[in-house]
């Protein structure tokens, strides 16, 4: 009868840390971790030591000091008496504005160009190829400067609009002025603004009248109503789809109900607020009134949209090509029109391939907006990361804040887009 004895208890020897594969990976990781920590500590203490050698401290209180400089494009109240912190916020809003405008336009351009590049029409297909390859292969900075130069050098000066026989004239029924300082378009103003209206001064034979104005509250209200309208529209769409599945009959007039849910409440709000248009007018040196889209914004917006649009076009093309040709043939066999095939069969399937790389493009566009510096667009890189740092000498603090801002923005964009991605990706059961 064989006796079973316990295997001898293995004693742990120090050399096992190196020679025993069970422990070796752990050993390496611990050593590397210590080295990285030492490296980081060295970098931080080096920075502290160098700062003190230069006689500088590490302090964010400069954000509360008076900025002293002016910013031309500001979405919130700002003057040179405001603080550096507020200047940074103005810059952040400007960055977000151009990033948002750019992402929307780039997506529209990209989807159209991507679809058209696959067109059977030789001219259309080649034109899109020229667009995509032209923009993809030339640096973005050049495009920004080219568009800015065209706007600055090619457009008439405001003073050309003056006189009885002006050299230049406004377009679209005297409502839009294209000048080398930017484009002036009519502004939406309200006679019953939530921010309160002022009365014009009464003169002989002229009664005092309400001066239309606009405030942030007005736009907040409109955007809230618009958002509710869109939510209602989506709800109606779901209800319609559910009913169609249940009964097989699509409710009639569904499209009009959805459109009405968005348009009617907004129209009511606009009427209640007494909306009118404020046209740009030439006074003194410049046009006044209306909305001034500065050249810097236009150049940056267009260049970012066209450049990123070219990349998105390639992503869309790849997405469409990833859908099997059999899908097209099957939908043709069902008698669907080509446009239905694209919208109802191909694009929904292609979206699964398109969305993930599209997120990267949105991130690229947002970060590329920091090239605003080249044309003097006052984004956060120019205010916080430029003038503020220069006037206060707080390079390290400013750059840390700037880095933090771009990091957070990028993470938020990618989080939001990932939520969307999860809703369109292949549902596996």
């Amino acid at each position, binding site marked *: 009868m064989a006796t079973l004895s316990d295997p001898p208890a293995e004693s742990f020897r120090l050399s096992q840390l190196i020679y025993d594969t069970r422990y070796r*990976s752990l050993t390496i990781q611990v050593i590397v971790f210590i080295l990285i920590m030492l490296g980081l500590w*060295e970098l931080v203490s080096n920075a502290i030591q160098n700062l003190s050698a230069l006689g500088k401290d590490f302090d964010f209180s400069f954000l509360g000091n008076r900025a002293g400089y002016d910013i031309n494009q500001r979405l919130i109240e700002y003057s040179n008496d405001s603080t550096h912190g507020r200047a940074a916020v103005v810059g952040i809003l400007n960055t977000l504005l151009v990033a948002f405008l750019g992402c929307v336009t780039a997506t529209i351009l990209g989807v159209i160009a991507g679809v058209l590049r696959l067109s059977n029409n030789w001219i259309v297909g080649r034109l899109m190829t020229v667009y995509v390859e032209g923009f993809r292969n030339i640096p973005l900075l050049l495009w920004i400067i080219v568009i800015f130069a065209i706007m600055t050098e090619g457009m008439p000066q405001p003073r050309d609009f003056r006189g009885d026989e002006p050299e230049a004239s406004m377009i679209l029924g005297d409502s839009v002025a294209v000048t080398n300082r930017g484009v002036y378009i009519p502004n939406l103003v309200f006679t019953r603004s939530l921010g309160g209206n002022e009365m014009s001064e009464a003169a002989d034979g002229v009664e005092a009248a309400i001066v239309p104005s606009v405030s942030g509250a007005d736009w907040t209200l409109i955007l809230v109503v618009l958002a509710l309208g869109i939510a209602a529209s989506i709800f109606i769409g779901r209800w319609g789809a559910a009913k169609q599945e249940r009964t097989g009959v699509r409710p009639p007039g569904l499209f009009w109900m959805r459109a009405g849910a968005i348009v009617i409440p907004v129209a009511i709000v606009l009427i209640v607020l007494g909306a009118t248009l404020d046209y740009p007018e030439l006074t003194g040196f410049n046009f006044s009134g209306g909305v001034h889209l500065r050249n810097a914004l236009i150049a940056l917006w267009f260049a970012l949209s066209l450049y990123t649009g070219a990349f998105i076009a390639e992503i869309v093309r790849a997405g469409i090509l990833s859908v099997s040709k059999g899908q097209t043939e099957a939908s043709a066999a069902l008698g669907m029109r080509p446009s239905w095939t694209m919208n109802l069969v191909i694009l929904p399937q292609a979206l699964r391939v398109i969305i993930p790389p599209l997120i990267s493009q949105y991130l690229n566009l947002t970060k590329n907006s920091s090239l605003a510096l080249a044309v003097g667009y006052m984004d956060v890189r120019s205010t916080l990361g430029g003038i503020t740092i*220069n006037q206060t000498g707080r390079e390290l603090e400013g750059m840390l804040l700037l880095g933090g801002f771009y990091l957070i923005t990028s993470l938020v964009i990618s989080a939001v887009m990932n939520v969307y991605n999860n809703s369109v990706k292949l549902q596996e059961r």
Partner: protein
Amino acid sequence: MKKSVFLGTLAVAGTAAGFAAADAHSSGTLAQIQERGTLNCGVSTGLTGFSAPDANGEWQGFDVAVCRAVAAAILDDPSAVEFVPTTGQTRFTALSSSEIDMLARNTTWTFSRDVDLAFEFAGVNYYDGQGFMVPRELGVSSALELDGATVCIQTGTTTELNLADYFSSNNMSYEPVPIETNAEAQQQYLAGACDVYTTDASGLAATRATFEDPSAHVLLPEIISKEPLGPLVRHGDNEFGDIVRWTLNALVAAEELGVTSANVGEIGNTTENPEIRRLLGTEGELGAMLGLDADWAARAIAAVGNYGEVFDGNIGESTPIGLARGLNAQWTDGGLLYAPPFR
């Protein structure tokens, strides 16, 4: 496993880089310059008369002369200068990060730059003030008529702050067009993208001189600020700071004492004036006190001439820029130039 090795290498490299960076600050700027054999001097990206490369690619100008004088004093070679073009925004970072040894770039001496940014101004080589330039056809004769104008302005400068103060204190509004360099401002201004260009009056004169038709543009009479422009170095390296300060003073004193680039060779031995003899190193130990040779100032003056020669040759009334001496005359002629005694 592969990844661990990579990370380990990275950590080691990071540590090494940290040590290397720490070393750069430990030895003095003067020793570094002597060892390197060249002076790294920050200048503007191009302002005719002050600092701009000529047709042969040689840097020329009023600010450039200061760099060359310092290089001649330290290295006995006015061409041993590495010129580093800087913009209004990059200049201070370039200096505090030791990318350049000194900055000679029409930079205004202000309290916060001297104290908070931890720099040391070596003196004033040009007393200036901020002015405005407008096209003549606009019919503007005073800066107080500029309400609502579009103004081109270099960002990150004192002029940007003065402009904001001036317009708000006079209850006027304006539309700033921020730009990075003087060349860009010139192009924007000429294209009519801004009604007004504002910067230091000397800069306006220098810019206007390069226009096709300078007479079509007027400089408005208002000077809205004091802009003492001068070379600067980092805080904490007083040895090098002294050299730059006293090189500048030597150029100013040379004009007052009648030392020129033509006579600097023999006047030190022939003159009876003890101050000239001390300045040029034929008497006393001034050079040794700076850690330089006895003829350091003579070399600087021989290289670029005295202050008056530098002024007349680059921006004076005989040049296209045509600036009068004005405040920049010697104190004996009613100006502000005043070099402390060499003794």
